[in-house]
């Protein structure tokens, strides 16, 4: 059941609601705030958001599941996304991926044991003229070499 008077237990949700209010149109900004704070969305967080906005938890889930940048379920503190499209492929994205996998000791799609990084591949990031490219969280990094990629990631460790 959705109880609009139930206390919010998730600090990330509480913070997001304090900042963004509880109007239906605030749903996306709230979800983004929660992900910024908690790195991902849990069942509880989505139910609490639904309660605060007086909408169904299925609706919150539906919206969140539409967006790549609103991860549902466990996700690392930082997300690395390497572009896998044709231009970056020609420029050597495979070597970048291999270097990151060796460095973090995980495969694409996995999260490091310490929870610091989730590593993914992504469709075109729009930096075809400067490939290979990757995103670390919201920041694009271009003209990558394996060494440069590792150095950039190291800054977040």
């Amino acid at each position, binding site marked *: 059941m959705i109880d609009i008077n139930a206390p919010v237990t998730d600090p990330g949700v509480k913070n997001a609601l304090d900042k963004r209010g509880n109007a239906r149109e605030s749903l996306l900004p709230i979800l983004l705030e929660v992900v910024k704070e908690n790195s991902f969305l849990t069942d509880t967080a989505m139910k609490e958001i639904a309660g605060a906005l007086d909408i169904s*938890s299925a609706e919150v889930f539906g919206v969140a599941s539409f967006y790549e940048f609103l991860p549902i379920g466990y996700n690392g503190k930082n997300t690395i996304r390497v572009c896998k499209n044709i231009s970056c492929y020609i420029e050597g994205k495979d070597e970048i991926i291999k270097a990151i996998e060796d460095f973090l000791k995980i495969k694409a799609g996995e999260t490091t044991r310490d929870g610091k990084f989730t590593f993914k591949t992504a469709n075109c990031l729009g930096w075809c003229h400067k490939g290979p490219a990757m995103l670390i969280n919201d920041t694009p990094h271009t003209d990558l070499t394996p060494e440069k990629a590792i150095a950039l990631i190291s800054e977040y460790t």
Partner: protein
Amino acid sequence: MGGMINLKINDIPISIEEGASILDAAKKINIQIPTLCHHDDLCVAGNCRVCVVEQAGMKTLPTACSTPVTEGMEILTNTPRVLGCRRTIIELLLSEHNVDCPHCYRNVNCELQGLAEEYSVDNPKLISLVTDESVEISSPSIRKDSSRCIRCQRCVRTCAELQHVTALCVANRGAEMKISTFMDRPMDQVVCTSCGQCINRCPTGALVEHNYIAEIWDHLGDPDKYLVVQTAPAVRVGLGEMLGFDPGTRVTGKMVTALRMIGFDAVFDTNFTADLTIMEEGTELLLRLKKALLDKKPVALPLLTSCSPGWIKYIEHEHHSLLDNLSTCKSPQQMFGPLAKTYYAEKAGIDPAGMIVVSIMPCTAKKFEANRPEMKVSGYKDVDYVLTTREFGRMIKQAGLDFKNLEDSKCDSILGKHTGAGVIFGATGGVAEAALRTVYEIITGREVPFKNLNITAVRGMEGVREASIKIEDCVDDWKFLEGVSLKVAIAHGLANARMLMKQVEKGESPYHFIEVMACPGGCLGGGGQPIPTNREIREKRAKAIYEEDESLELRKSHENPEVQKLYEEFLGKPGGRRSHELLHTSYTARS
């Protein structure tokens, strides 16, 4: 706003009010444009694209359902380009659809299949992209088969707009987009009321009821079983639609004959227990009013009706603080079960262990209700099986009965006699009207002051309606009600019920009694009724219900002689100890 727009469709000039769609305009001049995602009861979606038309001066083809008419517009609805595009769209939809039609419950009553036939899609060019997700069968009421889903989202809009439940949602994006639930959970683990309105609006077989036809035939063939059947009031005004009659045709007598010919041992009527419900619920209302007004003690008011199991499940999920307001009366279906297995079994000399009670209901939530763990007060499962009107219609076909030409016959005694008050339970406002007919007469000793007993203020299709009756010249027992205006509200569709409940939660509800039916139109628009549904069809069924009421000699529940006899011989008095054991229940707060 409010002006008229002039346009041409296929060179035919037409004038229509501003804001209308091309689809509306075409309908007005008897031109049909195919639709799938569009539904009269729901908001515009425009996602299936099958209603495309050509517009002079435009390169692309607009969708007729979501494009408003504009002045001077010239529309063509059947050019080779339009027909070709529609055919491609249908083929694309079919490429993602499990086209195993003969094995589908909606075979020959499927909108996609109908369009495939109309547009001669007989030469498939596209490879199949059907997912092999298994059918979701966790709910006792609803089966969800994603392989047959065309993602038109009618179900999602139904659940959100009509019911404000949103158990169903659209999840993911692009090729992975699908109709889902919170965290993709099974239907029995989410806030679903089992109302089945999604089924009524699904154009394909992606959402269907859990059907028990095979089990019933098995029991019918078993000589050791004694099958007792009850039919709800709304069934008799919907069933005909499946068997060659127009919407709004009453088929009560043929229905009873069909049940006997199919082989049921005793044919009874839920209307009987609807009358009984009025006796119990009316008494409950009067006792609560007495406690509040005379004894000045705290008591939960307004009293909320409890006949609609979808509504009950909804309030158990969503309004925990109002569970005390619910009438403790079971629904007529669940009053019938224990009476059949105790009172009737005893009188007829039948061992209830071998008795199978079957309900024919316009409802899918009744399947859930019959399976509630507390519904076993007779010592057995009170109601063994619930079939929808649709399942029953199919059984009549399977039995090879020429339904149209069947003779009329009447229900058996002693759980079959009913009054018009029981019949109108099938329409929104009916329970309130039936209750008023009896309660007013108990309080004043006179009939309700409405022409021909028809309390028209509580009838109709407005989402929320209200009425009040001023009580004057009470009999001695009810003197404390002198001068009180008895206020009644009615809601149908859970989105409307929710508005009234918010009012009650805030302590601002002016009403003494609120009738809620989960489905639009009440039971006659229930999730188990024949498909399609729309307001026009529901209004015709409602008209038939009220005609049936007027056709009966007795129209007040307390005048039902078999109900009177039941109290004399078995129950004692309304609200008495035995009534409480068998006919009343309690509710569970659900997360």
